[in-house]
């Protein structure tokens, strides 16, 4: 497969930017919302003659920066970056982001150390056996202050913990979206209906990651020659039509 986007590893825009700068240059200095949009559209137009590697990476950078900018533009919300990049000179904007990324990277590093510590401590077990018979009666009245609702919460949380544990044991973690799997699901929908709109594919109130992965899925299908894409005008819905061999429904 030509490109691969690890959505499950996405821990926020800083994390993603770090991953991206590890791979290639990212020109933040020149980024503005309209520019990102223009570039995106320009890229989509030239998509058929471009390497999809570049296109998908670009999309991610664009999404990242948009997220940073959106966060800094929202009134009353927490300002993740602190200032609006557009108000700064390119040099200032870059330095600001470098400082943020370096600070974030430091915590990312120490988080690795903490994880290692936690892992090694988790291999040591404290005694859970409780008291021996002769001492049990000496324990204070532990139920003082306990309410029925408190008891219900304890029981529900236990069941929850167990559910999560079993779920993870089955390797059916909910968070990551597999691009391969999602692409296959889109292919199957198409095999059934022939033509479908992008908005229908993602459904109402779709999570951003679902929109992204669905978009990547139709790009992948396009690359393999399994679908035709049509968008009549800017920001219009994308019409996806199945074509060619639709094997393995």
């Amino acid at each position, binding site marked *: 497969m030509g490109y691969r986007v690890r959505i499950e590893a996405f821990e926020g825009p800083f994390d993603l930017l770090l991953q991206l700068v590890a791979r290639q240059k990212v020109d933040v200095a020149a980024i503005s919302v309209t520019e990102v949009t223009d570039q995106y559209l320009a890229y989509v137009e030239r998509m058929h003659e471009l390497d999809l590697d570049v296109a998908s990476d670009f999309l991610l950078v664009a999404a990242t920066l948009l997220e940073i900018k959106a966060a800094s533009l929202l009134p009353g919300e927490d300002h993740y970056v602190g200032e609006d990049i557009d108000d700064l000179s390119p040099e200032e904007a870059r330095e600001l982001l470098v400082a943020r990324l370096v600070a974030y990277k430091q915590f990312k590093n120490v988080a690795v150390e903490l994880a290692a510590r936690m892992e090694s401590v988790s291999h040591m*077990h404290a*005694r*859970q*056996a*409780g*008291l*021996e*018979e*002769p*001492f*049990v*009666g*000496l*324990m*204070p*009245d*532990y*139920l*003082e*202050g*306990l*309410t*029925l*609702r408190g*008891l*219900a*919460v*304890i*029981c*529900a*949380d*236990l*069941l*929850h*913990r*167990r*559910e999560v*544990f079993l*779920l993870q044991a089955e390797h059916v973690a909910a968070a990551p979206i597999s691009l391969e799997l999602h692409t296959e699901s889109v292919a199957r929908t198409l095999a059934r209906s022939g033509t479908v709109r992008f908005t229908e594919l993602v459904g109402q109130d779709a999570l951003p990651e679902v929109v992204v992965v669905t978009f990547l899925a139709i790009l992948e299908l396009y690359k393999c020659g399994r679908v035709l894409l049509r968008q009549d005008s800017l920001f219009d819905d994308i019409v996806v039509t199945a074509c060619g061999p639709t094997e393995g429904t």
Partner: protein
Amino acid sequence: MEGDVRLRGAIEALLFVSDEPVSAARVAKILEADPGTVAKALEVLAEEYRDAERGFQLREAAGGWRLYTHPAYHDAIEQYVLSWDTRRLSQAALEALAVIAYHQPVTRAGINAVRGVNSEAVISSLVEKGLVREAGRDREAGNAILYTTTKAFLEKFGLKSLDELPPLEEFAPDERTEAAIRERLGGPARSFSADEDEASTAEADDIAEID
């Protein structure tokens, strides 16, 4: 020699976390060791603790080995337990009580399955406090003892019957858990009679399924 130390260490670790007497055969099975060697090692270990005048001892009782505190220090332990903060709730006891309240009648294995840890000592402390009692046996689970809450439990919380317990689904932290709770506790309303033998019917099956 190396292997001896390792086996001894593994046995000690196992006994340390164990909540109940464990037979030499069971230890051997868990550690994938030779039963004869394990039995011998257990005896040596018991002697070692005795000779070194440790604060704990290893004793064989009721068909298994278990670590106990040394009786010579029981006064000190009493002092210690009495000094425990009354308002510090023992999470283990609360959890076991909550599970019994909502899953009753339930076996020890059923409680363990929900809590994810062994609960024997905790259950006996609840029994001792008169909050939980033995109520018959689960015939389909090797005659395991079934536990229910007591009248004292109801009175403590001002309940007329167990039907008045707040519905557990309402407290589920997410939908998946809520569905799981509905599935497990759902079906016929929980109307537990004091009739001990009839207690182990449909609900006991549900419990067995969790194990």
